[in-house]
């Protein structure tokens, strides 16, 4: 049942992303994004979504607006007409990208938080080595942060740089080399540990017994909604 939920979860997100990519209806995309915002707020992820998305989506939309305002479709067209044509394009782009990001975050971030990501990846028949890499990729981010802080504090102790944001920014080029060298060294140590413990073999027997995931029926309903969304996205495409 758990495997079925994982398959349905992946399919419903894939179907939604396909629909959002095809759609160019601003209102439809805005509605989808707002729905996901409500869902993200319910699981406490709305701040993560806004921080990650708005930092990129707004500059992208503004760039699109500037470029499409400058493009002349008809010779002699007024600037105000071009601007009016560029606004829906920029809005559709912004809402499409935001909705896709929200769907992906809503699908995968709770899986990471409750330890069900391994089950999800194995349900999709991902090789054990790839599962190991995915888990390693997620855990290494915390390690990078911790080692970066260590190196920065060591440089501060040597009297190099100042302990403010600007000082940290100026230290970055000098921190990169020791940071990456230590990461590579720790990866060599990690490879030895994995080899000693035959981790790829152990992963084959891994199962989370207490699965706090939604039922297959609920994910079937979500798959249906994603399918309906896909159809609506195709039907309401602007001519």
């Amino acid at each position, binding site marked *: 049942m758990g495997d079925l939920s994982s398959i349905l979860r992946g399919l419903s997100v894939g179907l939604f992303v396909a629909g959002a990519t095809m759609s160019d209806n601003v209102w439809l995309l805005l509605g989808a994004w707002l729905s996901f915002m409500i869902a993200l707020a319910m699981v406490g992820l709305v701040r993560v979504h806004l921080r990650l998305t708005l930092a990129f*989506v707004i500059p992208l939309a503004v760039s699109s607006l500037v470029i499409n305002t400058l493009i002349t479709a008809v010779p002699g067209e007024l600037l105000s007409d071009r601007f009016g044509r560029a606004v829906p394009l920029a809005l559709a782009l912004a809402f499409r990208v935001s909705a896709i990001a929200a769907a992906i975050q809503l699908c995968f971030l709770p899986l990471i938080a409750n330890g069900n990501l391994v089950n999800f990846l194995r349900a999709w028949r991902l090789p054990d080595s790839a599962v190991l890499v995915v888990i390693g990729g997620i855990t290494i981010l915390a390690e990078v942060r911790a080692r970066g802080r260590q190196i920065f504090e060591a440089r501060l102790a040597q009297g190099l740089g100042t302990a403010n944001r600007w000082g940290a920014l100026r230290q970055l080029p000098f921190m990169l080399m020791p940071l990456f*060298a230590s990461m*590579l060294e720790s*990866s060599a140590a990690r490879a030895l540990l994995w080899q000693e413990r035959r981790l*790829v073999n152990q992963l084959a027997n891994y199962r989370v017994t207490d699965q706090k995931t939604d039922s297959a029926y609920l994910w079937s309903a979500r798959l249906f909604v994603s399918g309906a969304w896909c159809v609506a996205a195709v039907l309401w495409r602007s001519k």
Partner: protein
Amino acid sequence: VKQEDPYSGYEYQKLAVIPVGIALNLALGGLVAAIKLPVYLDAVGTIVVTMLTGWRVGMVVGVSSFVLASVLISPAYIYFVASQAAIAVYVHFVGWTLRAFVNLWRSISAGITLGIVACLVSAPVIIFEFKGAAGSGRDFLTALLIGAGARESVAVLLSGFASEPVDKTIQLLISLSLVRSFPRRVLIRFPHRVCVGN
């Protein structure tokens, strides 16, 4: 009964280095995207891992880091996975076949060519999906060229040819200096390191 482990020590080393390459791509790319520099610096991890382990692992690093970045940094990264795959294949090819990383001038010319390759691979996405916008400093050049009467596709290509070779040369030189500065006891675990002259 003990199961036979299909993975050798080097295979485990390749698996363990993938997250490091992904972290390097995400850390540098995320930082540059956050402070809006006119370069990307989002392929240093891909280039370093390709130099150390070859194009297959490099491609896995590039594609995986862009898939992860599309969730963690910016959703648009997912559209540029093909550029990362092309970077891995190109770096492997010029490193092994043309021995391009043995001195500075050959490395710089390899970086410029890498920029042109990356520009050609990413241009269709920028033109057809993002309607000309890339969400970076090169958009101003694109807008300027369109304002001067150039076609959208031509403007995107020209702005790419102006910015990508600089970006990719910087990335290639950073990657080379990183690989050459690694301790020998670490480098010895990577047979592919010979392509950077170590």
